[in-house]
């Protein structure tokens, strides 16, 4: 018998307890953590694999509606000012044109409710959308053309003539800083922390490093460009969208158009990558407005350039990191301060000091994130906002300290491993980063690294190894809710308004649900990404897995209570309470007497029911207040840098993760690799070029924004501690963003080891190494 079958067999013999009412202290861990029925932890292939490889999975621009028209946009070419003249006559007369919408005829709409300002607000900014003649950034939409075909719409859009009265705009970083900055505000706090006198401790330290690190604008560049297909049915709006927050979006659209939340339905069954960029932006609002005005369904698919013009990316940062250390390597002072560019609303501050707030013990801290406003498309969250670029700075600086001390960078990190959260003093829920370091070092062959930079050569290639720590905050969202429908054939359907943009949500949740309900995976169907479903769950912060997991656990408690009401007097379960029963083999059983068992099918048949449906909300995420909660990783990299051309090739990479229980090794490995590859781009090639004179993005294309391609990507090795977190649903923590953190620094540190050159300015292009 295989291990899995063994595990299944033993699971069949003992009922699985129900999850606690909440994850507060005293309620005990989720019993699923200890339970192994063989579903959780299995390397299951994606449940949506068939439709995806056949090209049969419908994405947002692939819903064909009767009588649908195509939208094309005209983008402003100045950064700030007003529209002086706007001539649409030729376009209006062009073949196939149904409507030209500008600020003159657009319906009155409220601005988007800014994400974070209320429970369901989704807007990336709160600027007026086509309500006046103002231009607020270079690339803003100033006209929408609807036509019978895409070609006709594009052609007509090209014939709209706009002139502008320009006003002075802030489009340079230096100007923005000179205008005055504001302290970033996140999770209800200013990002400003002082513990002790860090400057004095730095000055007095045995060794110190003090440097400035720079990271550029970046764009998500999901391969599916943003697209939406919308239709009004009298006063009801239906939107098939590329969205990672359908619930928030439905409420927000209702607010914008002055209708009830129930009158809006947003679906996103397949999303071609999101990475933080697929929230509510102006194009969805414009599509809905134009559809209303024309009284026709509309498909608005942004061109690749359109995505750059209308959807913001990761903000540019300039960070100072200074570390003072004693001769033994212990940190006396850590300073992590600096400035990030921001949109006016400051909705998504690039809070780069995050990793520094939990990574190391130190005698003193100074942390401060300032935001500088620029007139440009507002920045937003992009995979591990703050942490991806902040970890580049702090983890490069730690490497610099190791060099200054002549100490191994892994030993230096372990020496400064904190016992409790260094800022809040809270205990860690589960932190096994040291184990991850040890296991990773062993597997990667770290001991073979030559610590003297620039000494390992292979022909014209310089070879080096580097490492860095990864860290990402644990988040469980407060809005988790789920509906479970159990039918008389013993199958369940679970509905949650969550998302799967490639993370594998449906696959992993299917496994968890099967195990939690004692079913086979084939008996479970997980439906998601429809705003009419329960739950307010954005695909943000690597938080969906636990958010949905907690909601399903809550719904299961209700389901069990309802089932117990249905059992007959002669049932083996008669008279038992929810506390006395657990899940076993497609039914319920008495916890201490598994033989007292009745299957779901039998319970429903006995009660004459075809199905039973229950819905429940998850308890609030109090665990986040009780513990310092993060996922961790030890990242290892080997690079080869060409001594002649300065070209860097990443030849080996290992991520050794500590992220709680891994639910599906196959899809988790893919998530980790995906983050590492995006980190490889962050380190070496990716930059959105911004013309500081005109405020225009100069490379709005996949030809000129360089994503890592197959040839750039080595075989990436991923391992994990697999230690469950006792304070989270299923023992799991977030994994989607973790591995982009630390990767940039691991590569930069490897480049230093290879060449002796410390590059503190991303991306590390060949010119910086020549």
């Amino acid at each position, binding site marked *: 018998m295989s291990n899995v079958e063994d595990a299944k067999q033993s699971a069949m013999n003992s009922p699985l307890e129900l999850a606690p009412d909440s994850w507060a202290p005293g309620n005990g861990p989720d019993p699923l953590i200890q339970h192994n029925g063989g579903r959780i932890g299995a390397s299951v292939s994606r449940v949506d694999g068939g*439709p995806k*490889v056949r*090209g049969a999975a419908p994405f947002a621009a692939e819903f064909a509606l009767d009588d649908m028209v195509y939208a094309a946009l005209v983008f402003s070419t100045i950064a700030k000012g007003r529209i002086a003249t706007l001539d649409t006559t030729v376009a209006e007369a062009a073949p196939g044109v149904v409507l030209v919408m500008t600020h003159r005829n657009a319906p009155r709409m409220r601005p988007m409710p800014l994400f974070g300002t209320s429970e369901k607000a989704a807007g990336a900014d709160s600027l007026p959308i086509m309500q006046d003649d103002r231009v607020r950034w270079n690339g803003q939409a100033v006209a929408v053309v609807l036509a019978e075909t895409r070609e006709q719409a594009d052609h007509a859009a090209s014939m709209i003539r706009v002139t502008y009265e320009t006003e002075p705009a802030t489009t340079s970083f230096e100007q923005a800083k000179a205008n005055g900055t504001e302290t970033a505000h996140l999770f209800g706090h200013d990002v400003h922390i002082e513990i002790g006198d860090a400057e004095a401790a730095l000055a007095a330290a045995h060794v110190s490093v003090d440097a400035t690190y720079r990271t550029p604008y970046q764009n998500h560049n999901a391969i599916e460009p943003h697209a939406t297909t919308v239709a009004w049915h009298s006063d009801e709006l239906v939107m098939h969208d590329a969205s990672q927050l359908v619930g928030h979006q439905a409420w927000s659209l209702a607010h914008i158009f002055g209708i009830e939340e129930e009158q809006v339905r947003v679906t996103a069954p397949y999303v071609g990558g999101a990475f933080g960029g697929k929230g509510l932006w102006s194009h969805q609002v414009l599509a809905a407005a134009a559809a209303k005005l024309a009284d026709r369904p509309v498909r608005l698919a942004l061109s690749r350039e359109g995505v750059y013009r209308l959807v913001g990316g990761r903000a540019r940062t300039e960070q100072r990191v200074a570390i003072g250390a004693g001769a033994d390597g212990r940190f006396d002072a850590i300073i992590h301060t600096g400035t990030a560019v921001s949109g006016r609303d400051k909705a998504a501050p690039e809070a780069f000091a995050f990793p520094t707030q939990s990574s190391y013990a130190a005698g003193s801290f100074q942390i401060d994130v300032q935001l500088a406003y620029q007139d440009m498309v507002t920045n937003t969250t992009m995979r591990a906002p703050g942490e991806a670029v902040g970890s580049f700075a702090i983890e490069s600086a730690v490497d610099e300290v190791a060099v200054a001390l002549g100490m191994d960078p892994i030993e230096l990190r372990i020496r400064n491993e904190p016992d409790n959260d260094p800022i809040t003093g809270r205990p860690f829920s589960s932190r096994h980063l040291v184990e991850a370091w040890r296991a990773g070092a062993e597997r990667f062959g770290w001991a073979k690294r030559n610590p003297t930079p620039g000494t390992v050569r292979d022909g014209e290639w310089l070879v080096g190894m580097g490492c860095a720590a990864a860290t990402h905050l644990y988040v469980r969202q407060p809005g988790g809710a789920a509906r479970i429908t159990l039918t008389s054939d013993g199958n369940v359907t679970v509905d949650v308004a969550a998302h799967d943009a490639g993370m594998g949500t449906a696959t992993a949740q299917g496994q968890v649900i099967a195990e939690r309900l004692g079913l086979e995976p084939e008996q479970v169907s997980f439906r998601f990404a429809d705003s009419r479903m329960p739950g307010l769950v954005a695909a943000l912060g690597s938080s969906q897995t636990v958010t949905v997991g907690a909601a399903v656990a809550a719904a299961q408690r209700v389901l069990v209570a309802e089932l117990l009401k249905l059992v007959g007097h002669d049932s083996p379960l008669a008279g038992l309470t929810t506390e006395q029963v657990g899940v076993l083999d497609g039914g319920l059983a008495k916890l201490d007497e598994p033989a007292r068992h009745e299957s779901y099918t039998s319970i429903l048949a006995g009660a004459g029911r075809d199905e039973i449906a229950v819905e429940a909300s998850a308890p609030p995420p109090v665990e986040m207040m009780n513990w310092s909660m993060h996922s961790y990783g030890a990242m290892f990299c080997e690079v080869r840098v060409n001594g002649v051309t300065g070209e860097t090739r990443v030849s080996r990479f290992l991520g050794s993760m500590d992220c709680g229980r891994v639910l599906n090794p196959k899809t988790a490995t893919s998530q980790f*690799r995906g983050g590492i590859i995006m980190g490889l781009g962050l380190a070496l090639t990716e930059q959105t070029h911004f013309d500081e004179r005109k405020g225009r993005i100069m490379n709005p*294309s996949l030809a000129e924004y360089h994503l890592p391609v197959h040839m750039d990507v080595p075989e990436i090795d991923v391992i994990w501690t697999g230690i469950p977190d006792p304070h989270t649903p299923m023992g799991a923590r977030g994994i989607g963003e973790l591995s982009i953190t630390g990767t940039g620094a691991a590569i930069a540190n490897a480049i230093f080891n290879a060449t002796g050159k410390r590059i503190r300015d991303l991306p590390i292009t060949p010119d910086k190494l020549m």
Partner: protein
Amino acid sequence: MVTKDFSIRINGTAVGPPADPRVSLLDLLRETLQLHGTKKGCDQGACGACTVLADGERIVSCLALAVQYVGRNVVTIEGLAGDDELHPLQRAFIEHDGFQCGYCTPGQICSAVGMAAEARRGVPSHVTPDLTVGEVELTHDELRERMSGNLCRCGAHNGIVAAIAETCAGERK
């Protein structure tokens, strides 16, 4: 009037060319024929999501005007295997998790089919050491170099390469 001679064969079916000569092959597939398996990632030849096979050769259909393909045989992801069947490469992509969001996937798969044929014909790549050999062996580097026109933002590269390597190796046996 469209006659047989002026049709494009798409997955074996004759299709009339579009009346509007501006229509790209990609938009003909997606908007007229509702063959949405072929994806649009950039519409400018930079991402490979729109890759289809034209007379067995991989092309980016966003840079192809549909009217140029009159008289040609176009195979899209929908036509690679029979209705209920999966092409071996499609199966291998599932097994090796060669995708996450799945948006680049049809392009990767069609591209791989065309790429393997190029290697069999001895078409060299930037990393081919010997330009005179007939059939080029699809080493890890050859495969990655030849697939580099197909972008994947989810970072499924390792799985994609494993799936193609396994399938192409299987074909050679």
